[in-house]
């Protein structure tokens, strides 16, 4: 079962590992990110950051399709991370999902602060709107205890 699909440019980090994983009782983590999948050092440190009992899969967005398709049917509890909106859109084209959590998008040139520490460019906002038009429930939320923001 896929518990959460999240955009977070920090990928594996504190909010995910210390809070979400425990709140949702996650035991399988999928990082769908081309850059990490092609970087042995990044894969190694992410693997080392995993607690005992957690299975980590790092794949390119294209490869993640099969993993998610299998994850949707298996009894494990999956959390999938993508780095940015573009990856999320590609993932949705390969594997349609119905909810998307936007949890981490740091300020960068070309981006505007949307809500708290979530910053998006105009193209990214438009892409998320397009996803929403396709029926995906897109919400901004950093932690489970934070409100889910849908009017962005």
């Amino acid at each position: 079962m896929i518990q959460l699909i999240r955009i977070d440019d920090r990928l594996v980090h504190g909010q995910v590992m210390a809070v979400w994983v425990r709140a949702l009782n996650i035991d399988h983590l999928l990082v769908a990110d081309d850059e990490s999948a092609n970087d042995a050092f990044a894969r190694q440190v992410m693997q080392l950051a995993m607690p005992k009992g957690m299975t980590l899969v790092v794949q390119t967005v294209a490869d993640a399709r099969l993993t998610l398709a299998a994850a949707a049917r298996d009894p494990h509890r999956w959390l999938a991370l993508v780095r940015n909106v573009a990856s999320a859109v590609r993932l949705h084209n390969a594997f349609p999902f119905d909810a998307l959590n936007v949890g981490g998008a740091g300020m960068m040139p070309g981006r505007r602060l949307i809500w708290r520490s979530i910053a998006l460019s105009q193209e990214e906002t438009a892409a998320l709107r397009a996803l929403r038009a396709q029926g995906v429930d897109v919400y901004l939320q950093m932690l489970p205890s934070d409100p889910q923001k849908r009017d962005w």
Partner: protein
Amino acid sequence: MSLFHALLIGLIYYLANTSFLCGLAYFTTWRPVVNGFLVGLALGEPAQGALVGALINVLYLGYLSVGGTLGIGDAALAGITGATASIMLAVPPAMATGVGVVVGVLLGNLGFPLLTLRLKLDGRLVRRMDAAAEQGNARAVTWLNIAPAQALLFAITAPAAAALALMIGALGPLAGLLPDALTRGLSIAGMGLSGALGIALAMRFVFQRWGIAFFLAGFALAGVSGSLSLIADISVAVLLCVTAGSLIAILAGTARLRRDARHSRRLPLTPFWLWQCFSHSAYSFERLQGSGFAGALAPLIERVCATLEDRKDALKRQLAFFNTEVNLGAMLVSIVARMEAERAAGRATATEIEKTKSTLMGALAGFGDPLIQGALLPCVLSTALVILFSEFAANPREPALTGLVLYVAAIGSLIFAVGWLCYQAGDAFGRDAVTQLLGSPIVVRGAEAARGITAFMLGALVTSPWVVSLPPGPPPGGPLEFVRLGASLLLTLALWGLSWRIYSRPMLLWIGLLACGVLMALNGVI
């Protein structure tokens, strides 16, 4: 409440957030157990302040703050206003503690708008840092992160807490007009019920596979021995070991890392101190710790960059969004400092630096937040709370100084040791230090041990009538005492079970407990 006392309370709230305590404020003065005592000291009732602070802290035992968020409210504001309320409100002395806890936890929610305000205003400061970077002015980048940022923090925190203190003082006499059942209900909820929720939430976030066994062992040992004093003695030993172990680790670890280091010349310590103190000084939504990182590296950038253009680029690069676990993050400060020096000498590229930073900050936080905030801190805190509640039981008129002093000594030395050794290790081994640390079986076992100890201490805390008591009130003694212990255990376990269902809104459970307290009072339970 005189203006002077209100200002003192404002100062305590600033101290809870200040960067001038070497990065340790978040682990010491920010915790209700410490700031409740300080407020008590300021208002002339240190024992009462410490007791309310400790009780509020039980609710925040499993609390984590990650990436500019607050879980269930601002613990510091809760401790400070709770201690103030319990001393200033005109309620019968027997109920002042519980009522103080409730008022504090409610007012702690005001921490959300305050944090939002701070992270927004700091954004303006960061844009001034951007402007300084644009001119290649490294000193201004460091300076803006220190003085103006701390002045702003003071201007936000101190008046807010002082105003709340004045308000509580002004409303104090009116508290006597509240219906007796309501006052008694809130008192029951604050002392005896909400502690069970705090323990349940901590169980939720700290327990691993065998957690429940350690928890029941702690409960049984404390229950059978009839008080917390036996476990408190063990706890004193644990905290003394943590303190001594941390100090030894600083000395021995430093010597060993310097011996094995790859470079004969060590990095200066300036970036370490600047990071350790001011990592969160200008904490903004836009960049989070990016300002702290740039401020820490700016002096080194000024030294190693040959041209103005080079310096501008380096400063702008380090001002980018950054977010990691602070203490493990010290490792990244030294790794990136070395890389900047390499790059200035033409042996590394800007892209490599950015990539290293973004890859490692996530992994270090993903590993570090569960380790520091999810294992080490709850371990030291719950161990110290056992000592405190044992002391309160022995003498409620004294502020439980043994527990307080040992808590500050143990957590201060432990956290400082982590930051210091991480900086030294990053200096000695570069990015291999990260793989060594994350792959280290000692660290992983240490975290497991810390979680086991926490579970044991949480079990022991359930037996303290101050923390959990069902039915509420003083322990009945005799065989009835076992009934009370059993009911308290069941309440805690039930809340633990519920917390899995209502994970996103722990405050709902707490409000439910308030309602239970009032219902009990209406039905004359005590």
